[in-house]
């Protein structure tokens, strides 16, 4: 491992948020984007081929070292406290906002058929959605969109990486999961 890679590794390791290439570049001063990207690619390959306990995830426009999903059970045992789960309602509301953004609350409620104020508030508090602006309509309603934290949570590089909406006609007998 060369020195630059080791330094970048230490930065990734010390950061609690994904680091962009530009961020790494600005910290290192001397390096250019290409060099940083190469070092990141090398690190990613090394983690992969070395079958390490972690891997390099490309999320929310940056890079973050994360533990391998296959070890989830052990880490959950270590952490004991379970993270707050998203309710089915919150998840569906979030999916609507992710796919339809920029979107109004009334659009969300039209799709779901129910008042969604409380759910929106929850998503807001968890910083998964944000106000993108206001619509030029009576009452100037807020326009919602997803946040960086949303991308981080679902391991998405950017919004383009959202899985394509399924064509219902191709699905046949399968039904969406439900908690019920």
């Amino acid at each position, binding site marked *: 491992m060369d020195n630059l890679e080791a330094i970048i590794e230490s930065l990734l390791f010390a950061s609690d948020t994904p680091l962009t290439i530009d961020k790494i570049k600005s910290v290192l001063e001397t390096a250019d984007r290409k060099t940083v990207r190469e070092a990141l690619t090398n690190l990613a390959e090394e983690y992969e081929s070395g079958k390490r306990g972690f891997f390099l995830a490309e999320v929310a426009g940056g890079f973050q070292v994360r533990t391998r*999903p296959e070890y989830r059970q052990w880490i959950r045992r270590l952490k004991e406290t379970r993270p707050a789960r998203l309710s089915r309602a919150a*998840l569906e509301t979030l999916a609507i906002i992710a796919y339809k953004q920029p979107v109004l609350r009334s659009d969300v409620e039209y799709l779901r058929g*129910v008042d969604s104020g409380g759910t929106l508030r929850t998503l807001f508090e968890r910083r998964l959605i*944000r106000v993108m602006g206001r619509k030029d309509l009576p009452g*100037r309603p807020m326009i919602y969109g997803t946040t960086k934290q949303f991308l981080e949570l679902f391991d998405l590089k950017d919004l383009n990486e959202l899985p394509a909406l*399924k064509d219902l006609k191709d699905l046949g007998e399968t*039904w969406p999961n439900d908690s019920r």
Partner: protein
Amino acid sequence: MEQTQDQTPYKVHLGDLFDGPMDLLVHLVKKNEVDIYDIPIALITQQYVEYLEWMKSLNIDVAGDFLVMAATLAHIKSRVLLPTQEEGVDDEDPRMEIVRPLAEYLQLKYAADDLMERDRLDWDVFARRDFDGTEASSEGEPGGLIQVGLFELIDAFQEIIKRVSPAYLWDLTPDTISVKSRISQIADILEERGSMTFQELFEAQATRGDIIVTFLAILEMAKFQLIRIMQHLESGIIRIFNG
């Protein structure tokens, strides 16, 4: 909640069982194993209504949303069963009124599933939490600090409002906020350039509302002596300067 259970009878809301009328509809379509593009509307409507009746008989609270959907279904059913008066032009299947939103709703339910299948942070994968364990962390930071988000900002503001007398509550309509925003923009420009003409100020103001907002901003800034307004004697050009 547990303490109050003795006094008040436990009441279930239909909304606790189904997210909403769409959700119940999905359940019925699924249960009957029918094609959503060819819904047997009479059957589904009947089952839907029976469901609501059954819930009511169990003293389960049925929210208005569910009743609205029942009415919609009944209306579609009647249009399907009764032959249309005017034959021809745009004879769409009346069921499309419910099929379209239902299909879109289903599609998003699948999308929600797709999201859940990804490697979720703090569930499937874990990242480093903080800077502890780094050599540089020994410097530390002063205690009692929190990471800040927009909602924390608002909450902080609400806390303050709770403490002050109602007489001091001010009305924060979006309009007053637009004025504040405009003040900030004008301050930015003046900070950069020192001055600008009145004309420039109103340029690119798309709507009448925007012009009024700008004008109110100028008045407010003048009141606070953030700007000086000058008019050239000969040309008549009005110019505002950084106060």
